[in-house]
């Protein structure tokens, strides 16, 4: 019977691999039957590793081991239960390090438990939905590496011994007879197994780099297991196993990259500790500052701020400081980027538009509006050719430093003194077309020109329009007098060329 695990991108490889494994199992089992009959008998009740239990019947967790999921009324059946013991109707606890099985009965508290280290698991089969599975209790199948004495391979005890542990793996089935969430458990099982939390603790505890977790050790000696207990890459099976591990590690790093919530939650404790440590260091640094600040100290403090920022923690030190290096770099990058859109937009671009363009260009690692604002405010301190400008109406724009308001006003004035404009005024759209900028920007310019006394507004059912300002030339004490070559006379001439007398407009004239 070939055991299939459905692998989307390479179905043939998987079935081949599992077929190989199956053949291997058969071979090794037959060998073991001949070779180690005594041990088999002994292994009847000792297939699984032993797990310690507290006085109230809870399993004793290892350092850093965290419980992930729990299922009740579970049977654990090793594949060959004729020779290995069956564990019936217990509590199956999934942790970050092990699968623990506890005999659960209401009468007595369990005194001992069995465990399978996750490190010993070589493969987890995905659940098969078939007609049969509708009627049966759900089953979770996984493959466990078995050492030479027939017991579950225990990496913590077996490391260092080159006893030539067998290349066998046994399929264990967990039959879930209770009401637990089987699919959820399976997902968590995958996650915990892939997370390989036990490896990080092993590295930190061993200290030397020799006991690396994913042993691609090219050691001497035969067999699939190298001296430190990790899997070696030999032969076709080795190549295939290598591919499998590569796939698994890519998958794992992808998961990390997407910051799976589960992984983050397990790292939350570390994060909190780190944040506290950093906060203490930085705060103590600023409070104990004497008049002569050491440059080195400032540098390392800035680095720490950067690290904090990179994990998303806002610097606890004041924001008015020269700004973390991150913001400085962002500021420069933004100044470079915004040059081309500025040219295209005629020298002035709305801050919101610039934000959208910038983020779109970045693709991933988007910046927040707050970052954008800080980056723009930092431009004052650098020598960049762009600046942030806030209009009276509250609109914020990015414009070239070389941009001159006077030049724009001159262009507006020439536009608004054309005969057509003298008669009907100009709208922001007209100005936008002439000046070659966005209508919103044009309106800002017109409003600024108005505030300088260059234009007057005219609000009517026709809309919001601007005219050249005639008021300065009119004398209240001599209202009827019109200067000969002033703007008023120009206006009167323009208005009267419709041939209807001063100020009279035909109804078709808009």
């Amino acid at each position, binding site marked *: 019977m070939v055991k299939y695990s459905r692998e989307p991108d390479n179905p043939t490889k998987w079935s081949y691999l599992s077929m190989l494994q199956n053949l291997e199992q058969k071979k090794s089992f037959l060998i073991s039957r001949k070779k180690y009959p005594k041990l088999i008998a002994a292994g009847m009740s000792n297939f699984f590793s032993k797990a310690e239990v507290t006085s109230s019947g809870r399993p004793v967790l290892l350092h850093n081991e965290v419980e992930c999921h729990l299922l009740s009324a579970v049977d654990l059946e090793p594949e060959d239960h004729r020779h290995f013991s069956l564990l019936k109707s217990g509590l199956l606890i999934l942790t970050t390090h092990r699968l623990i099985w506890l005999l659960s009965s209401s009468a007595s508290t369990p005194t001992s438990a069995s465990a399978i280290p996750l490190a010993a698991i070589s493969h987890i089969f995905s659940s098969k939905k078939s007609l049969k599975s509708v009627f049966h209790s759900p089953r979770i199948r996984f493959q466990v590496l078995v050492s030479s004495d027939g017991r579950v391979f225990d990496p913590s005890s077996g490391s260092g011994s080159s006893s030539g542990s067998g290349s066998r793996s046994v399929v264990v089935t967990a039959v879930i007879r209770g009401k637990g969430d089987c699919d959820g458990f399976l997902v968590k099982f995958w996650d915990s197994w892939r997370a390989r939390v036990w490896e990080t603790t092993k590295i930190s505890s061993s200290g030397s780099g020799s006991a690396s977790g994913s042993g691609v050790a090219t050691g001497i000696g035969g067999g699939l297991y190298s001296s430190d207990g990790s899997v070696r890459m030999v032969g076709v099976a080795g190549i295939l196993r290598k591919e499998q591990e590569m796939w698994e590690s890519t998958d794992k790093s992808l998961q990390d990259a997407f910051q799976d919530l589960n992984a983050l939650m397990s790292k939350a404790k570390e994060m909190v500790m780190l944040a506290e440590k950093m906060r203490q260091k930085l705060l103590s640094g600023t409070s104990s500052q004497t008049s002569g600040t050491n440059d080195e100290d400032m540098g390392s403090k800035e680095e720490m701020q950067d690290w904090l920022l990179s994990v998303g923690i806002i610097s606890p030190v004041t924001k008015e400081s020269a700004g973390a290096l991150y913001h400085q770099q962002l500021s420069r990058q933004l100044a470079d980027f915004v040059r081309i859109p500025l040219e295209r937009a005629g020298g002035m671009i709305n801050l919101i538009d610039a934000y959208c363009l910038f983020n779109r260009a970045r693709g991933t690692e988007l910046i927040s509006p707050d970052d954008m604002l800080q980056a723009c405010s930092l431009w004052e301190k650098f020598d960049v050719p762009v600046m942030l400008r806030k209009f009276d109406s509250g609109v914020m724009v990015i414009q070239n430093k070389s941009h001159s308001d006077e030049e724009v006003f001159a262009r507006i004035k020439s536009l608004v003194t054309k005969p057509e404009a003298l008669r009907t005024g100009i709208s922001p759209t007209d100005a936008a077309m002439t000046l070659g900028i966005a209508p919103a920007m044009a309106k800002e310019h017109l409003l600024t020109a108005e505030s300088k006394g260059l234009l*007057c507004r005219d609000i*009517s059912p026709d809309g919001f329009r601007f005219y050249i300002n005639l*008021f*300065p030339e009119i004398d*209240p004490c001599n209202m009827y007098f019109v200067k000969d070559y002033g703007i008023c006379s120009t206006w009167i001439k323009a208005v009267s060329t419709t041939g209807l007398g001063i100020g*009279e407009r035909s109804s078709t004239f808009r």
Partner: protein
Amino acid sequence: MQKLGDFKLPHFFNYPPYFTLQPVRETSEKQIQLWKELILDYCRIQKIFVIRLEEEFPLFSNSVVERTLSHEAREAFLSALVAEGRAEWLDKGRRNCLILWHRIQEWADIIVNFVKDNGFEDSVMTVEEIRSGIESRGTELQGIDRTILVRALKLLEHKGKLAIFKGTSTDDEGVKFSV
């Protein structure tokens, strides 16, 4: 030149921004000044003494450029007149405004001159006679608003130039001059 009745309108009356209350301070100051003068002139020529904001006022709309002063703008200009002392609000709700294109003092002087010109120094007249009597025809006093007239008379009474008394009939008050 455009006209509104007999009144000659200035050229900027057809300048559309003239009918929109300008936000920029310098511009709006000029605009308010122009409107104040225009209103006073118009009222003087047309002998209008009261402007009611809720009614149509010919000066506040221009059909040629199709613009009308908003209520806010009207109130702003009239308030400016009141602040200058050339107008008064007749009610708290600011719906009716008394236009003093002559100040009360000026009206008082006009009355004194009128009395002197016609030799009424020691005679008695009713208030209504001052307004619409034969003698006042052709003078500025013709058709003067009663409120204004009474105020002017009271001012003169205060100065001792005349005395106001209630008439024998219940309708009108009389004035005895002692200019």
